Structures are given as structure tokens and as C-alpha cells.
């Protein structure tokens, strides 16, 4: 395959950046999208040029490290596919691909296609955990969980934190990510004591990072490589409303939100 690449090149966070066009001949359709970039980079290095910087780690679609906006879609055109699992056979010979970094003010560009997603880490650090001593493993049957809740919690926990939801959202909202992280704990018994505190803290952090608000476009769900459903956002909204209404009924600083 022969491709034309319009790639966003940006030296560092202060560089205004620009698009540079590269020709990419002799690309095998069996290559993954990242392998194609590897080949392009090898040729750039051989010519003494600066290779295109992009993020990647596992290349198995499970780490959430890779992510490029390809022709206007984060992770490219295929549903439920990360950039690393996307294969060049998805494209046609002679195609022009426009490669841009995930765009959001909360995700500053580090270099070229690499962005800084530590805003997500701070949302997790604000409350996306359970503060209980772990201890020894208890008997599996001592904490009954309805099958449906276990499934929904697993669906939410499938989030790999890649940030495609933010990249696809017209408002650069991090609601799908935050909602998945609120839901994966809120649906299980272990998450109940801090459920109401958690949602308020995580939403506050999400807002403080400068993400936009959800307007229910549904773009996030469409590009999510793990297919995290929009229902999680409604669950976050529901928990947030309930947390607000029950606020002040407990002693200051006391965590917990009652059953369910």
C-alpha cells in the first residue's frame, strides 16, 4: 500500500506545531497502524530526520497508552479498536491519513502525537479507590453480588483510560471516563461506604482539570475501544444528585452514603 500522511508535528509543549506531509510507500496491509508508523520512523531516521513521536506500550489493546486521531476519529474508523490493534487493511491503497493528537486543554501535547493524560490520574487520586485495609482474602460467598451488577461493574472496569472519549467529545468532556471509574466501584458492595463522597470528589477534580461538560452526543461511546456504555454517565448523574441531596445529613468528614 502507498499512503500519504498528514502528521501533526510539535517539538514540545511550547511549540505552536504544524502539519507535515509524508509519503509512505510499501506499507503492508497486515501491519498494525503503529507498525506502519514504526516503518515510517525508520525511514525518517535513515534520512537523518526526527521520527514522529507517538505513545504506545502493550500493543495488545489493553494498556490504554496509544491513541491517535486518524481522519477525525480517535483510534481510527473501526469500532472497539485501539490504535495499536487497528490494521492497515482497514484503509485503501492511496489513502490520505490525517494524524492528530487527542485534543483537550486538560491533555496538553508533550510532543507530536503524545499527550499528557495525568489529569485522568488526578481524577482517580481524588476518590477512585476504596480506602479499606486489604487483609486476607475472605470467603467468596460472604459478599453476595447480583450477577447483573457484577457484569455492569466489569463492563465499566474495562475502561483502559486511553482518553479517546475526551478526544471524540465535541466538548472535550471526561464524563465517560469518570462515570466508568465511579460505576466500577459504585456497583459493588465494597464501594458503598465511600460512594457518595467519591462521586462528588471525582466530579470536582474532573471540573478542576478543565474538561468540558456532557451534552449527550454519544461520540464517546462510539469511539471507546472497550465500548463503555453511556448508561454509566446516567449512573454518575444519579449518584451525584443523590450525593448532593443527602449531603449534610452526616457528620462532616464522615464517609458513607447508606445502602444502594
Amino acid at each position, binding site marked *: 500500500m502507498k499512503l500519504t500522511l498528514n502528521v501533526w508535528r510539535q517539538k514540545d509543549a511550547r511549540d505552536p506545531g504544524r502539519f507535515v506531509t509524508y509519503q509512505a510507500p510499501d506499507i503492508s496491509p497486515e501491519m498494525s497502524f503503529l507498525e506502519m508508523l514504526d516503518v515510517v520512523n525508520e525511514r525518517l531516521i535513515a534520512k537523518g530526520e526526527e521520527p514522529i513521536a507517538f505513545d504506545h506500550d502493550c500493543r495488545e489493546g489493553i494498556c490504554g497508552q496509544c491513541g491517535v486521531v486518524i481522519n477525525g476519529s480517535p483510534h481510527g474508523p473501526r469500532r472497539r479498536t485501539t490504535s495499536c490493534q487497528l490494521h492497515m487493511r482497514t484503509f485503501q491503497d492511496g489513502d490520505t491519513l490525517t494524524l492528530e493528537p487527542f485534543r483537550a486543554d486538560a491533555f496538553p501535547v508533550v510532543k507530536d502525537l503524545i499527550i499528557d493524560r495525568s489529569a485522568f490520574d488526578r481524577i482517580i487520586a481524588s476518590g477512585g479507590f476504596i480506602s479499606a485495609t486489604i487483609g486476607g482474602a475472605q470467603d467468596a460467598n460472604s459478599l453476595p453480588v447480583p450477577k447483573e451488577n457484577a457484569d455492569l461493574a466489569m463492563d465499566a472496569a474495562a475502561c483502559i483510560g486511553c482518553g479517546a472519549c475526551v478526544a471524540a467529545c465535541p466538548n472535550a468532556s471526561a464524563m465517560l471516563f469518570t462515570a466508568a471509574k465511579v460505576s466500577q466501584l459504585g456497583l459493588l458492595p465494597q464501594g458503598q461506604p465511600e460512594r457518595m463522597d467519591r462521586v462528588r470528589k471525582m466530579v*470536582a477534580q474532573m471540573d478542576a482539570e478543565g474538561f468540558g*461538560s456532557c451534552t449527550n452526543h454519544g461520540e464517546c461511546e462510539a469511539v471507546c475501544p472497550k465500548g463503555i456504555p453511556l448508561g454509566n454517565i446516567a449512573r454518575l448523574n444519579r*449518584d451525584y444528585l443523590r450525593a448532593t441531596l443527602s449531603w449534610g445529613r452526616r457528620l462532616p468528614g464522615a464517609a458513607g452514603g447508606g445502602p444502594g
Partner: protein
Amino acid sequence: MPTATAMSKGRATGETESFLSATVGKKVVMAATGLILFGFVIGHMLGNLQLYMGAEALNAYALFLRTFLHGGGIWIARTVLLASVVLHIWAMTSLTLVNRRARAVGYRQWKPRESTYASRTMRWSGVFLLAFIIYHLLHFTTGDAHPDFIPGDVYHNVVSGFQVVPVSIVYILATLCLALHLFHGSWSMLQTLGLNHPRYNRLRNVICVGLAALVVVGNLSFPVAVLTGLVR
């Protein structure tokens, strides 16, 4: 653990914010006021269907609206509606500013995959509806924008108003704009209020879009009925 706290913007990690300063809280305001306004347009359309029952029925209905609760009822309704509109616009403005800041540098290429024309034009359909509501009040409520206005004779005002073709066209366009606004807004507000359940989502969306369609068809029928001479 100084790292996460020191790096976050504006607020220390783990602090909370007030309901109305949170994006999620503002969205709830947006949705709750939207629900009130949606309820109003349904009732408004249903009441106006009395146009088809003749002058006597429609005028008696108008008199009832102006006099129930000793004339206080209409002012309670107007206060609630005005407060809803103001809060709806406040939440929209505030959230739009947040959203604009959230992506200062845009994409060269962006391909919509799931969003609809209606969802992407909510702000514009809203602005157009606001302008229309002001005109609508001047036209049928105060009569300032109606050349042949007779106070109390609603039937006459409606028929003579819609007999002016450009006026009917404005009403038809505004109704189509309302259709766009409600197509996205009707189910979106329930999602924002947390009403989402896999078993009922399809039903939820069908009922919401169905009610919106009912409002739109009903409202479109009035100028069309007058223009075609069905109501005279």
C-alpha cells in the same frame, strides 16, 4: 503525597465543589428546567387544539387561563416559565464557556459518528427559539406585533394572524426548530437526570421523541389549517 495535589489545577485533589458550580449540577439545572419547558409546550399545544372546536371554545379556554385562581394562576405559571427560561439560559451560557475552554485548539478533521444534527445545533436552535418566543409574545399575548389584534378574541387573533403568509412561515420554521431542539433535548434531559435503564431506554427514547413529534405535528397544524382555509 505532594505530587497529585500540587499538580492539579485550582483545587487540591479530593476536595469537592458546590452543586451549582459543578458541570454535572449545571446540567441538572439545564435538564430540570428543560423538563418544565417540555411539559409546558405539550400542554400549550394540547390547549391550542381547541382552535378546532371553534371560536367560543378557544376564547372560553383563554378566559379560563386568565382568570383561574382569581387571575393568579397565570402569573404563577408565567413566573415558573420565566425562571425556567432564565436558568436554562444561564446554565447553557456557563457550560458553553467551560466547553469552549476545554478545547481551545481544535481538530483539522473531525468526523461525527454518533452525534446528530439536532444534538450539534442545540445552542443555535435554542437561540432561534428565544427570538421566536419574544416575537410570539408580542404577536399573540400583547398584540404589539399583530396589526389586527382584538384583546380577548383569541380565535380571531390566531386566524387573522396566520392568514398573513410570512407570519405563518415564521411559525412553521420555529416549530421545525423546536422539533430539532426536542429531538435531542427530550431524552437527553432524562439521561442527565440519571434516568437510564437498559430495559427501559428504548421505551424512554420512543416516548420522548413521540411526545416531541406530537407537539411538533400539533403546532404545525395550526398555521397550515388557517392557510388552507380549514379554519377561518
